[in-house]
């Protein structure tokens, strides 16, 4: 049972970091979007 727990821990943590890494990429990419007004100002 403890072995299963360790497996869940390893995969679980890896999963959380991987998903948040994807969210990080999404945030970076979306952060580059500019509103129309900003574009016009630029």
């Amino acid at each position, binding site marked *: 049972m403890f072995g*299963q727990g360790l497996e869940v821990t390893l995969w679980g943590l890896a999963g959380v970091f991987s998903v*948040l890494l994807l969210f990080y990429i999404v945030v970076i990419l979306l952060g580059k*979007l500019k509103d129309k007004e900003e574009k016009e100002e630029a």
Partner: protein
Amino acid sequence: MIEKFNELFTALANNDMAAASEVGLYFLGMIVMFFIGGVLIYLAIKKDYEPALLLPIGFGAIITNIPLTNIVAGAEGEQGIFGFLYENTIANELFPVLIFIAVGAMIDFTPLFQTPFMLFFGAAAQFGIFATMLFALALGFDIAEAGAIGVIGAADGPTSIFVANAFKLDKGLVAAITVAAYSYMSLVPIIQPPVIKLLTTKEERRIRMNFKQKNVSKLAKILFPITVTVIAGMIAKESVALVGALMFGNLIRECGVLDRLSETAQKELANLVTLLLGITIGTTMTAQAFLNWDTVKIMAMGLVAFIFDTAGGVLFAKFINLFRKEKVNPMVGAAGISAFPMSARVIQKMAKDEDPMNFVLMQSVAANVSGQLGSVVAGSMILVLIGKIIGL
């Protein structure tokens, strides 16, 4: 009540000590649960510890232990009003999902766009979930129970309830997990500072961080909840209910054309669901279901969860600092738990205590909202991985 007294007097008159002690224990359990309910109400009113939840839970714990009450189930097994509410709002996971819509409508992800790196602290501070699960396994809980207990470390009541119900745990365990999750959430200002101080030096706590204010486009804020839901759902379909509800709430906040719905979600929906959620959970706290060693262990595990969450965030920040030129104040890592905005405020206060000119609030808030995402993702991971083991 009178029937129970009659049972007691009859047993004593007949010198039937076994029956008398059984009825005596019944009354003792009732008194202890009245006391526990009273303590929760006291903490809510006097100490302001999550009053919106602890007060209804405490009152529910009292009314459900009034002898022979039929609020949960009648004498012949028929459903009482709170039994009906439990089965149709909590056991089927309706309330946790509705709460997530409300929470999503309350979250502003702007600080995250300004300091995206903080997202990783939202992942690191979920370490407590998995560490607690291992502790729970060592204490003899089975893998589903241990997983649900670990999710107390999500510092996020609805996720704890959602996972515990998905694993179809006993009502008593769900109640203990819920009480632990909400109680420790309110104790963040007491639990986090000593753990942070233990793991950091004064110099580390005084590290200043730069913050660059930048505009975040409305389009980005609208696309964010949609993209996050799709990505999370593609990776783990089990996460759609939780992440989807959270992000739906956020979308109605950010879209700019549903202000009334957004306000309703933040106020009326959140209040109504919280009110019914608290008292319904409270009514599951019968002496028979709640007064056992498992409850004591779960309460202890809750503390372990929050300690390891905090430690995970702080140690990850210290690890990152080994490679970064621009150092991160390790205290910010501790804000990666989901207790929003309490944890961010605690970190800012600690930073100010060390150096009155140190402002880490925006970074802490960014880590804190990341923690809300991280906790939902971690809860989903537990659902997926343990769900596979137990064949859910």
